[in-house]
């Protein structure tokens, strides 16, 4: 449990990773996520067009509706996740590599899932109750999800380091 998170390592990793994200990775990453989302939509027979990706925002068109998603604010959670993994103490290089690769894929999956809330929004926004539900879903997946998903994935990887059985014994 000791040194599970090393704050200085987190800062040392997150600052260059953030700069890399801001000036080099954000645009291609968001373009990739946008097209991956459009492809998953196509699998379900939905034609979503990616109109533009610029300044951390993605512009989509679907079923006659056009909207801009400021997805850069959510997409950056991949940087938070990578920083957290790189700051995790007591793991071998191979374990860290696996955490970065598998965890990165899961976080990517949650980002695509977040974009699906836009489709739900298009379908439900005609009624007030529907729009409220769609707004809530979007806030859950891309608002809370921005923090929840990377943290949950990280907790999954470090689950054996958490003293769960010991805590339970103390409680009983």
């Amino acid at each position, binding site marked *: *449990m*000791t040194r*599970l*998170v090393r*704050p200085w390592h*987190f*800062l040392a990793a*997150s600052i260059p990773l*953030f700069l890399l994200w*801001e000036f080099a990775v954000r645009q291609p990453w968001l373009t990739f996520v946008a097209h991956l989302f459009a492809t998953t939509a196509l699998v379900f027979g939905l034609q979503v067009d990616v109109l533009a990706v610029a300044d*951390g925002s993605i512009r989509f068109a679907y079923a006659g509706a056009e909207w801009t998603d400021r997805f*850069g*604010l959510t997409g*950056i*959670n991949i*940087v*938070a*996740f990578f*920083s*957290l993994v790189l*700051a*995790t103490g*007591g*793991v071998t290089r191979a*374990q860290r590599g696996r*955490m970065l690769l598998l965890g990165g894929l899961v976080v990517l999956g949650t980002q695509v899932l977040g974009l699906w809330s836009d489709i739900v929004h298009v379908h439900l926004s005609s009624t007030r109750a529907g729009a*409220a539900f769609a707004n*809530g879903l979007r*806030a*859950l997946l891309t*608002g*809370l999800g*921005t*923090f*929840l998903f*990377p*943290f*949950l994935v*990280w*907790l*999954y*990887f*470090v*689950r*054996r*380091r*958490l*003293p*769960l*059985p*010991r*805590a*339970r014994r*103390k*409680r009983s």
Partner: protein
Amino acid sequence: MSHHRKKRSRSVRKRARPDPAAWKKADRPAIRRYLLVFAGAAAGLFGVYWTAEVTGKFQHVNLLNAALSGAVLRACGFPTERTGTVLQFERGGMEIISECSGVYVAILFAAAVLAFPTSWRARGWGLALGLVALFAVNVVRLVTVGMVIAWRESLFPLVHEYLWQILFVLVVALLYVAWIEKTTPRASPAEEGSP
């Protein structure tokens, strides 16, 4: 004599070593329960927050954040005028909306604390101290963002996104790990696992 002692210590070490397979198997239900309760609590707390948001009750938290941030900014020598949840500086301004309140990280932390198998007393003080700490960190974040807007607005996205989206994950992780270490007895060498 020395050979005998070496042999004995080796056998002691062998007994202390855990059986990883047995440990993992015994641990699996606890881990599953923990992760499920965590996700469920996060969803439930989000439901509570969203209800407060759509009924307008959460606006009180935004007003409190705006009032505190404005007061700290003024105390730091930045002329700040507040109208509701809007802070106006000499150059530029900012509106404090619900997403700026740190509610998402508060939900995350609270869900993680509630999911951890410990006493309600430990959960209670963990939530009380942790949420107050997160609220304080968020006010510091808002003040920093306000200073950046007043000083050089072009840096706003950089500071806003970095502090909000990345640094808060570190704060939550550190608070959570610190709380677990306070509430749980120290591990014996046999209980140490690896991810």
